[in-house]
């Protein structure tokens, strides 16, 4: 690992250290109780009947045979759900799109709109009986015409997925005079790119256990990124919000797939109905079949530049596939729209973005959330530009990179350092000397891709997080924060911050997370926001607490207040005299000085902006660059990534080991996206519902990704940190595409970059591409 540190404003003892996470050992030694590991006495097992058709009317739904099976406790259909709808807020820029479009039907009511849509729920004494009951439900479907491509969905006369029409959301950005700028540009690169639908494919499929507790509160312990879905469960059941509690144990991977509700509502319904604990674990097949996925996009880029490589204009058209239900599509499209021009100055820009309903599996949040799909577009364009003008790939990016104080085409001014140029240089140089091809039919090439990814939620969501920090009478520290830890080290980073401020060892800090009843609410573990948001909340709480404790300690030490420090579990005077924290706490108790504090952090907030007029959309952004070296077999089209250097400015690495983990994991996921993964859907039928057909890379398929951490010290998180959860997934696919052109001279514009696509581009195959390839 390479690390470029800038001097901190204050000397740090714990922040910045690569401390092993407290949860790591438990996980490796199989002590972590994941959602599916939870057992309760008298527990039932839940299962879901899913639609076999992507578009059909339910003519008859008869559960009597299933309900009569011995061991079946409940069979529920739409009729049994008190309020069978979840609403999510869909902002949309044009009046074509109304606000109430994000209706999610929990159990199909008369029609099914995608294959795998939940139709009925079962709870039974064993998983075997539950499965038998699912198979014993009689459903008669009348297949209806469907629409499986977003362009076809928007054509006149297309079958309507929902009554209101198939256009789900639309955003646009306009700045400058694109028409004129493109006319005057020395070069214009006009290319259409396509990226595919992919799955989160986390190790831990969706799972949970729910029970009605002794106090009558419905308690749901589930694998989720969002404990605040307790409100949605309450709405569905028609009970007050404070009667539902959601607990998130350590999560075995989220990546956005557990941002929307998955099992929680179903568990809630079954436990509420049966008054018994119910466990539900989705199989890998169910998870791959039906849980919301990443949006495929068609991206058309027309990029104009001057002869010296300076960008003069971007005209971009985006079309995304929302699948059958809205989920978070409108927001995903917003991220895409705002970042479509990349980390570059573009004086004249136009982005027209639409997302349409189809009868495909629904799409929603996934690491990178619309912004990552854009990297293929803007970075392929930059590379084509460099090639056309004979410029070095780093140089063309350096000439156009944003700087602090510049405005994005949407009008938002960048308030922090933009380290794109350093990142590009470091990543490119990190590749070292070129390797020689192994055989005469191999070619080796290199590619670069930079990116911009927001961290923190959209400013008009008025995001906030709270966290409680307290010091026990023995001087140990407790943190309470409603933060789901989805494997990124979210909890341990908060311990590290509390430890830093309160001068105790990290092992002296205990943390309680992700219980909507007992931990202060901290918002979602999504949008690269928890370190930023909850980190700031813990920092605020710990600092306030420290100030109070120091005042009491100064009196005990008879030292001037302001000169006493907390370290090694003690308060220390300038002359070295010390008093143990435990003793200070006793004094606090005697004096009635509170020994805990609830910190709240409010992110910069704003009003919804009309993107066409412009304004601030996100709190801030993270920038980075990846460089890869690939080897292409020119007889088969196979691509092997030989080296991968990934560099991001994280502002401040609270825990460099966790940052490296995010960068390496993100790069691996990005390479899987670039080279292997695709949810293949034919006429609405998902053909990739096992890990034998849905190909995620294994350790044998990936190079060692070398992370390079830049620390500009300039971010909006604690100690100047920026978010790093999502950013590293963005650049790999584009970097590989660029490297392939460097190696072979052919440009791949469609993901994943399968050997077959490369072979076709190389002219190795005579027959035309089949329909979907």
């Amino acid at each position: 690992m390479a690390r470029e540190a800038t001097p901190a404003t204050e000397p740090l003892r714990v922040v910045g250290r690569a401390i092993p996470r407290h949860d790591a050992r438990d996980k490796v030694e199989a002590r972590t109780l994941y959602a599916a590991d939870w057992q309760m006495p008298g527990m039932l097992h839940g299962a879901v009947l899913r639609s076999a058709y992507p578009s059909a009317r339910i003519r008859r739904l008869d559960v009597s045979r299933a309900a009569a099976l011995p061991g079946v406790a409940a069979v529920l259909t739409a009729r049994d759900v008190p309020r069978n709808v979840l609403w999510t807020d869909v902002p949309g820029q044009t009046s074509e799109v109304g606000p109430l479009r994000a209706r999610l039907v929990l159990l199909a009511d008369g029609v099914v709109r995608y294959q795998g849509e939940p139709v009925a729920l079962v709870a039974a004494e064993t998983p075997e009986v539950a499965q038998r009951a699912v198979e014993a439900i009689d459903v008669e479907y009348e297949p209806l015409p469907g629409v499986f491509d977003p362009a076809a969905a928007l054509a006149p006369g297309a079958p309507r997925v929902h009554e209101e029409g198939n256009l789900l959301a639309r955003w646009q950005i306009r700045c400058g005079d694109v028409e004129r700028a493109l006319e005057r540009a020395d070069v214009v690169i006009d290319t259409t790119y396509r990226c595919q639908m992919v799955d989160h494919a986390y190790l831990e499929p969706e799972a949970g256990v729910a029970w009605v507790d002794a106090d009558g509160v419905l308690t749901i312990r589930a694998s989720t990124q969002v404990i605040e879905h307790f409100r949605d469960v309450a709405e569905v059941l028609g009970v007050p919000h404070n009667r539902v509690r959601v607990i998130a144990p350590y999560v075995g991977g989220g990546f956005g797939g557990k941002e929307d509700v998955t099992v929680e509502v179903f568990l809630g319904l079954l436990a509420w109905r049966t008054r018994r604990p119910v466990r539900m674990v989705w199989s890998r097949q169910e998870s791959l079949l039906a849980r919301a996925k990443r949006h495929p996009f068609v991206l058309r880029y027309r990029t104009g530049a001057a002869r010296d490589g300076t960008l003069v204009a971007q005209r971009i058209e985006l079309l995304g596939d929302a699948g059958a239900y809205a989920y978070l599509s409108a927001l995903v499209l917003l991220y895409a729209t705002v970042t479509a021009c990349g980390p570059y100055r573009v004086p004249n820009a136009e982005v027209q973005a639409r997302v349409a309903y189809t009868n495909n599996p629904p799409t929603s949040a996934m690491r990178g959330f619309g912004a990552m799909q854009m990297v293929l577009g803007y970075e392929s364009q930059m590379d084509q530009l460099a090639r056309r003008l004979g410029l070095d790939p780093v140089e063309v990016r350096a000439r156009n990179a944003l700087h602090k104080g510049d405005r994005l085409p949407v009008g938002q001014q960048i308030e922090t350092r933009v380290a794109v140029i350093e990142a590009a240089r470091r990543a490119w140089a990190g590749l070292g000397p070129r390797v020689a091809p192994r055989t005469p039919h191999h070619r080796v090439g290199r590619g670069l891709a930079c990116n911009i990814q927001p961290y923190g939620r959209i400013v008009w969501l008025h995001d906030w997080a709270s966290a409680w920090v307290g010091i026990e009478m023995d001087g140990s520290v407790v943190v309470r924060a409603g933060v789901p830890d989805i494997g990124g080290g979210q909890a341990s980073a908060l311990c590290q911050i509390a430890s830093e401020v309160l001068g105790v060892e990290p092992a002296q800090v205990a943390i309680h997370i992700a219980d909507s009843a007992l931990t202060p609410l901290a918002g979602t573990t999504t949008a690269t926001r928890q370190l930023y948001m909850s980190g700031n909340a813990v920092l605020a709480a710990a600092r306030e607490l420290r100030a109070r404790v120091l005042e009491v300690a100064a009196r005990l030490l008879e030292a001037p207040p302001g000169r006493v420090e907390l370290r090694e579990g003690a308060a220390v005077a300038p002359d070295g005299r010390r008093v143990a924290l435990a003793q200070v706490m006793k004094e606090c108790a005697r004096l009635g000085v509170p020994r805990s504090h609830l910190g709240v952090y409010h992110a910069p907030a704003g009003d919804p902006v009309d993107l066409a007029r412009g304004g601030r959309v996100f709190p801030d952004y993270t920038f980075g660059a990846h460089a890869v070296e690939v080897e292409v077999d020119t007889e088969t089209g196979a691509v092997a990534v030989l080296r991968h250097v990934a560099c991001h400015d994280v502002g401040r690495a609270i825990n460099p080991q966790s940052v490296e983990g995010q960068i390496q994991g993100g790069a691996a996921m990005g390479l899987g996206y670039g080279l292997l993964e695709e949810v293949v859907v034919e006429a609405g039928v998902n053909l990739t519902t096992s890990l034998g057909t849905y190909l995620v890379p294994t350790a044998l398929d990936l190079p060692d990704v070398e992370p390079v951490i830049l620390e500009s010290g300039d971010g909006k998180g604690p100690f100047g940190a920026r978010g790093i959860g999502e950013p590293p997934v963005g650049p790999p696919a584009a970097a590989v595409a660029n490297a392939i052109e460097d190696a072979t001279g052919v440009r791949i514009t469609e993901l994943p970059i399968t050997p077959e696509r490369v072979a076709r581009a190389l002219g190795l195959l005579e027959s035309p591409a089949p329909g979907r390839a």
Partner: protein
Amino acid sequence: MPAVPFDYHAPATLAEAVSLLGSLGEDAKPLAGGQSLLPLLTLRLVRPRAVVDLHRLDELRAVRRDGGTLEVGALVRHRALERGEGPLVLCPLLQEAAALIGNVRVRALGTIGGSLAHADPAAELPAAVRALDGTILVQGAAGARAIPAEEFFAGLLTTALRPDELLTAVRLPLPGPRTGHAVEEFSRRAGDFAIVAAFAVVQLDAAGRVAAARVALAGCGPTPRRLDAVERALVGLAPSEEEIRRVVAHRPLEIEPDSDVHASAAYRRHLAGVLTVRALARAAAGARAFGP
């Protein structure tokens, strides 16, 4: 997902197993290493009423050399083939083919008999046995049969085995002098089933010309395919890579690949050509290394 419940039998002898299968008929499935059957059970793609576990049948574990042939028992694991344990070392093509199966956990359990009986069109061992001109030995209630590999693989996941028959062993002719072999496989990920794989055996005469050549392909149709026209055309040639390339390019490949989520038929056809050349060239180089 849990499998649909089934009855479980673990007979102690081959005779008992065969008579059990005879009485259970089509509703029973033999279980060997379980590496194909168990996934099919838990995905509920097969729902047998009974499973007949073969693990107690030690007589199916034997490996015997008998003059110029090697007899490999049905329960011999992929891992033993890969490592060339005992007399298996005499059949290096099998060794190279087995090493490409799945991952080490799969190889530690999967068996040659299971792989041949399962007859996956992309599997290594069926095509390897075809390239080796092997014979499949089976035992049923009505007695034993020896079926040439060519007739054994009848169609997609379908063999000449009758429901009451067990595959007991495979008999392979041992390679003669100046014989080289090679496997060239293409898959999307390390350890995956092949998209296409080519299995080649080349025997040279004393003058360094091809005395006999055999090449079989996996992933190019419902059953493993031999390229008869290519094999015949090579005989008598000095097998340089260019010569092999020329021969392969000018013969239509007698294959009928399908399209699926991993590759189109056209791409499989292309790969078949590339891998056939590579496998034959490497096999020929191996044969030359024996010297005259």
